[in-house]
């Protein structure tokens, strides 16, 4: 299988009045056709930023820095103009289900009208044709066509999320970025949505980037997992490498230990003390060093490189450097 997406040395800084927030610092990963890549990490580690960077639409003070490469289907989209991106990339090749999008549906318009608008934003087509298309996609996400005439407040959270997912699929993109698509939903609806996504992936031969902070959920959807910390990749490995045995990065280990398990009663859960660092002045050396339980001297002076410890398994930790 060929690489659908290749991200090389991606850097995205938010140039705020207080300084540059280094939200993404030298992030590289690739994604194969038909694969699901999971992005996990605590709040503020740059998951959403990665998503919007791939669409080349960072929120205002943000800018993709020089030297970054986002190669989709063999073309680097970083140098492309906004017009070209809109015409050939956004929604045509990559689309995104934004974080909290289901709560951002306008209460005053019907679902159909809002879906039409999304559609028109990306490709003009005749109204009749568009309505047919919308109905077709509502069907794909398991909603009856009447939903078109309903208002957001008449739908449950799960139905709204389905609507948002349908809107991302209109133009048959090859890659869909799903940013916390189930965070606000309860477990049953979450499981239903995950099942739906898996089915859609098969039907449309999609690739996903699945963003969440829930490691347990990631285990059920992603072929490969990319653990991010403070704008950098801490560990990247296959599902089996992360969940099958002990992961290698202390951050991943801690995150896993902090996940409560349904079928195993524990007395105390581990947790990571402290909070993620300020991304304007990140700590020198390894960015995780203030919260790590197994630091060495080198962790405070030099940034650990992301190295491949076994095929397909990359870790950025000095402990893993032989």
């Amino acid at each position, binding site marked *: 299988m060929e690489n659908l997406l290749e991200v090389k040395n991606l850097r995205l800084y938010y140039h705020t009045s207080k300084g540059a927030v280094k939200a993404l610092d030298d992030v590289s990963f690739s994604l194969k056709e038909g694969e699901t890549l999971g992005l996990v990490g605590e709040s503020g580690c740059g998951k959403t930023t990665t998503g919007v960077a791939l669409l080349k639409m960072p929120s205002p003070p943000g800018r993709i820095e020089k030297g970054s490469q986002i190669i989709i289907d063999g073309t680097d989209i970083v140098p492309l103009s906004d017009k070209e991106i809109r015409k050939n990339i956004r929604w045509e090749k990559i689309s995104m289900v934004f974080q909290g999008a289901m709560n951002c549906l306008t209460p005053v318009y019907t679902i159909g009208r809002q879906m039409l608008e999304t559609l028109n934003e990306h490709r003009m087509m005749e109204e009749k044709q568009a309505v047919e298309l919308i109905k077709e996609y509502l069907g794909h996400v398991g909603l009856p066509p009447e939903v078109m005439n309903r208002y957001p407040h008449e739908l449950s959270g799960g139905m709204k999320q389905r609507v948002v997912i349908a809107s991302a699929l209109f133009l048959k993109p090859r890659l869909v970025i799903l940013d916390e698509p189930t965070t606000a939903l309860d477990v049953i609806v979450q499981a239903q949505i995950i099942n739906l996504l898996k089915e859609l992936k098969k039907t449309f031969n999609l690739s996903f980037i699945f963003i969440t902070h829930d490691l347990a959920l990631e285990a059920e959807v992603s072929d490969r997992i990319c653990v991010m910390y403070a704008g950098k990749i801490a560990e990247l490995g296959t599902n089996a490498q992360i969940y099958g045995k002990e992961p290698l990065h202390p951050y991943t280990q801690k995150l896993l230990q902090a996940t409560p398990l349904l*079928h195993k009663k524990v007395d105390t859960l581990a*947790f990571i003390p402290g909070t993620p660092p300020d991304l304007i002045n990140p700590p020198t050396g390894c960015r995780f060093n203030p919260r790590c339980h197994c630091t060495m001297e080198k962790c405070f002076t030099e940034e650990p490189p992301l190295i491949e410890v076994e095929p397909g398994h990359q870790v950025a930790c000095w402990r893993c450097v032989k």
Partner: protein
Amino acid sequence: MSEVLLEVKNLKKHFVPHLTLAQTLAGGKKRVIKAVDGVSFSIMKGEIFGLIGESGSGKTTTGKLIMKLIEPTSGTITFDGEDVTFTNKAKTQEYRRKVQMIFQDPYASMNPRFKIRDVLLEPLIIHKMHGNRAEQIERVLKALTEVKLTPPEEFLVRYPHMLSGGQRQRTATARTLILNPKMLVADEPVSMIDLSTRAEILHMMKEVQRDLGLTYLYITHDLSTARYFTDRIAVMYLGRIVEMGPADEIIDNPIHPYTQALIAAVPEPQAGKVDIIKKLPISGEIPSPANIPSGCRFHTRCPYATEACANNPEPELMDAGNGHFHACARWKEIPKAQ
């Protein structure tokens, strides 16, 4: 451990939304939303009691009823042997001192214009406790230490937006502890916090509970935290409890199909599940509480439902031994979850 602190009997809350003028003209009938529809349970002193259910099952409404933030349509609430369902102002105020609530959204539960100091002083000012301001500050500092926000002085002058989600939820907990309550109602206290901090908050809450001998009503839709956190669990569906019992018992030997579905839906961090489409022993979405199905209210989504389930009167909670109760008429026929 065997003394009952809070007892709720046949509690109901039916919302009757006002019709708009247009609806009235169109001859619309008033809808009755049966958010809580006959809930009974009792919580022991020093116990952590979990209330579990999907979105819309009436958990928050039950919590608010217990907090006396809304008035029940019928039923009784007994606290510490005293009927507190309808009380006068003074009694309510006294009750408020004993029962406190932690809200779901740590970002919204504190006034954004209050400094942490003011947030924490508020209960003391309202209840005129702990004497003068200096003594009150003393109490505030103590509460901050209790929830492990140290050094406490540093937090006094901050605004809520200057705290992380976890720190905010700690502050919210501190605010409830300041009045030395007997019971805390925690409505999804960690569902909006990061996974890494979630464990920390639950751990802290558990410690506080042990140290101060508190009783918790813990509301969540996430069974995995409930397993870790609670002693007993009541599973709620459409305003009614369908299964209740010790946490381990409920999760390891669920009887009611709804509980089984809830358990099946919980994701677990194990390899090799990517290509499997999970079998969920439940279909569709939760019906509207304005239109509750006849018979067993779960029958519309139940994979084991028969015609009888829809036609027979609604099953009451039945004892299955070991303090395990359930409300499934066909429990003998239902296969055990693996």
